[in-house]
């Protein structure tokens, strides 16, 4: 056995001699130029250019979200697409392996997690940011760099026993109290958006909001007794202690819907639709002091070695258009375009959803500027809490 290990090590070292040294990302100026050019083009111009470019070939999209609906884009443009759905970790891994080695894999990435997007994808030049010129004014500046195509809402939702319970979550600190033990959510260890949500909470802005909510709940100011670096960490720690980690949003949704009265979960609002939601209440509509959930951004960027950069831009353009949003994402509640001229669908409205403005006010929004400043410390501390539960 010892010999075997030695042998493997020796062989490994030998191997390293020729395996080492990966190529730096190929800076494809053609793509850069195309993206730049596309920014000023109108939909029709872009469409024409894209068609010329791609012909009968397929546009390849790696997307974390399943809504990358093939038909509607193809119907609208005549361009064929192939969509793959790795999770966000896998997207970044494939991106590194492919773009990082100058190999073509995909044209468009539709993904989450600002931290990796900024520090891995953009930092290494794996992707190009594209903002459709025609929507530039309609998209908030903070959503343009990198471009957020839309937001998803993840909310506190509870089982109301078919209307027999108004649990009245009026303050976010309630969620750290024993009464709410067993809130189901996806583990921040395994899902980036949930982690980023908690990290965002540690910002001064959210510290202040949490302090205010604390005061109104407990009638006194929060005092730092040294247990936690700041108030946000106390909330996070106690909240995590109260949570039960479930691996899938749809499982959480069904657990809450089929569970007993008062069962509470933190899950993607769109899953609401899959269940019998007459028995569930979205806490946000009661008006929660602090916050009622989170909004997480879905980014959409062009691969820096895209084969069909114009078509890629066209696809992103489509996602931000009214038609594209409604067809691809907007059928159900819980998804909100960053294009302020795009309203939620009638179906979503009928089911009780509100416009993005409401959610922006009531939710924590992943803060791609703040997160990197505290990432290592905050991530590690929170991860340790989650793992050590």
């Amino acid at each position, binding site marked *: 056995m010892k010999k075997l290990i030695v042998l493997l090590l020796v062989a490994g070292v030998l191997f390293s001699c020729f395996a080492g040294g990966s190529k730096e990302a190929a800076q494809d100026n053609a793509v850069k130029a195309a993206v730049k050019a596309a920014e000023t083009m109108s939909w029709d111009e872009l469409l024409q250019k894209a068609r010329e470019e791609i012909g009968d070939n397929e546009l390849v999209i790696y997307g974390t979200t399943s809504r990358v609906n093939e038909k509607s884009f193809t119907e609208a443009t005549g361009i064929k697409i192939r969509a793959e759905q790795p999770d966000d970790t896998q997207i970044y891994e494939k991106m590194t392996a492919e773009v990082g080695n100058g190999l073509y894999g995909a044209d468009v990435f539709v993904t989450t997690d600002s931290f990796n997007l900024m520090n891995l994808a953009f930092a290494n030049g794996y992707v190009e940011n594209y903002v459709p010129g025609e929507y530039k004014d309609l998209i908030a500046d903070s959503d343009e760099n990198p471009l957020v195509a839309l937001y998803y809402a993840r909310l506190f939702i509870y089982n109301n026993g078919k209307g027999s319970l108004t649990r009245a979550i009026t303050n976010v600190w309630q969620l750290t109290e024993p009464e709410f033990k067993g809130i189901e959510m996806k583990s921040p260890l395994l899902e980036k958006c949930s982690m980023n949500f908690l990290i965002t909470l540690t910002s001064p802005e959210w510290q202040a909001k949490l302090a205010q909510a604390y005061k109104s709940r407990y009638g006194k100011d929060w005092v730092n007794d040294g247990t936690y670096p700041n108030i946000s960490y106390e909330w996070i720690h106690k909240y995590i202690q109260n949570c039960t980690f479930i691996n899938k949003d*749809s499982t959480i949704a069904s*657990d809450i819907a089929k569970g007993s009265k008062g*069962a509470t979960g933190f899950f993607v609002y769109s899953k609401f639709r899959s269940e019998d939601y007459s028995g569930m209440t979205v806490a946000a509509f009661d008006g929660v002091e602090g916050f009622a959930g989170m909004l997480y951004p879905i980014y959409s960027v062009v691969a820096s070695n895209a084969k069909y950069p114009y078509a890629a831009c066209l696809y992103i353009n489509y996602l931000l258009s009214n038609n594209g949003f409604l067809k691809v994402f907007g059928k159900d509640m819980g998804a909100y375009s960053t294009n302020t001229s795009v309203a939620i669908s009638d179906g979503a409205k009928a089911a009780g959803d509100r416009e993005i403005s409401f959610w922006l006010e009531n939710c924590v929004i992943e803060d791609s500027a703040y997160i990197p400043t505290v990432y290592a410390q905050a991530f590690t501390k929170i991860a340790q809490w989650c793992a050590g539960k």
Partner: protein
Amino acid sequence: MEKNKFFNRVLAYFTKPSNVIVVAFLIILLACIVYPLYSVLSLSLTVGQMDSLMYNSLFGLHLKKGSFSLLNISMLMFGKYSAEYSASFFWSPLWNSIRMSVYASAIAVLIGGVVAWLITRTDIRYKKFISSVFVFPYIMPSWTLALVWKNVFANSQVGTGVTGMLESLTGICVPSWFVYGIFPCSIVMGIHYAPFAYILIGGILRNMDANLEEAATILKADRWRIIRKVTLPIVMPALISTVLLVFSSTMASYAVPVFVGSPGNFYVMSTMLRALYSGSYSGQSYVMTLVLVLIGIGMLTLNQALIGKRKSFTTVTGKSGQVSYVKLKGNKLVSVIMVVVLFFMAIFPIFSFALESLCEVQGDYSTLTLKFWLSKEDIGGFQVAVGKGILLNSVVWKAMLGSILLSLVVALVVGTSGFLIGYGVSKKRGSRMATLLSNVAFFPYLIPSMAFGSIFLAVSTKLLFLRGTFLLLVIVASVKYLPFASRSGTSAMMQLSGEIEEAAIIVGAPWITRMTKILFPIQKSSFISGYLLPFVSCIRELSLFVLLASSGTLITTLLSYFDERNVVQMSNGINLLIIMVVLLVNFTTNKLTGASIDKGIGGN
């Protein structure tokens, strides 16, 4: 002169097929696993891009991406960040993993071994049924068993209070530890791998000279003593192989612990590995992988220490057709209990998949419909495009055929390799080369699928001709599943005495003839299971391929697609389809060759 002598010696060495086989496989395998192992080692000793960001910020350093560092190890294992961190991410998951794997192996060996004994040695009834149905839990992806567990035992006292089947039928509420945590994880993994134990142990029992047990009977040993003193020691190699495989598989298993473990705050190495991997500490995740590999090496060494060299020459001279079955007391009761247990372990999950795939509204059994199977139109009402009913859905069929093709090719490669490795190792038994080969062949098993897939993704960016090809999938899966076949091949070959082949050499039969006409047929059932097991594992594998195959090429990617998107009718239906395909392949093999996954033990 000297040169010539050396040359002649080399030539003489390679005229023996067993030498060629051992050397060739050693070279191929070393090539296929040295790089992965080297990657794991080097990645655990260097900092990745994200790692460097984290470390620099945490510890005020200026590490560059790719630079050598022991930080991965010291932070993960030795409290560099905090003792609590190391405890939560490493030591406690390590302890949990070991416990879970020990329990799961014990359960698998116990259930599988007892059933194997009942089938091969007693006059229990319904043998054919028990034998063929018992392998179902292995065919199903393990997480589906976890799902069934949850659906049965969830109750109003646990979690959000979803009422499970047991409660709604009997009103019994099992405690929380019964639903979530180490208990269900161990049981589910144990049940999932019990068929494995059954196949390996049953194979030995069936081939074992019954005289050995009869000799003890005549010396007035009671049944228990015979089992303890004669049967068990003789099946010990198979038993240890089983433990080794189940232990390693359970160590690396992710889906079940995350499904019924995490909600009970039960974390194991694989959950933490994935957390670290996706959570900006990929270097630490490779340390974790390395630890898994080292544990595996430890198990292998232990294996060798346990089966002493002298005793391991357990050549069974021939088969004794004269097995006299033990008369079971309360045969009827035992048989009925077996059938009932099997119903819950094997039939019930399948039945529930079928039922779920027939519900218009998920879980509402009053809304039965065939549309998820037969709809000619695209099925609406979901957040994602579903397409036509499963049987008419070209996407499903394409993926299914892709999976079948891949699994068939892999099974052929792996099964044949296992047979040949078994031959080489048994011919050269005791030699250092043979030991090395049989150990090396086991190595891929110790690397978790996820890490394995990710390493081969990196390989494919270097060896471009492999990238995105079917061949790459075949290679990855073949290497990964070789341990099954090489274990069963070796143990089957070890049981054949050398004279059997020698007799054929004497009459001048060429090597190929000896293999195909003599050795293979004698241990046919073992070898065929060396083909079937990789087939089964391959067709239901997901994490190994997820980075390497584009979606829609394999049925499991499609299954997980529907599952993630909560289109449970489709995912359950596809699950059922996979099981049916495996059963069909098993059935066909059985009809054609007389062998089957369960080897038809006792059935005839």
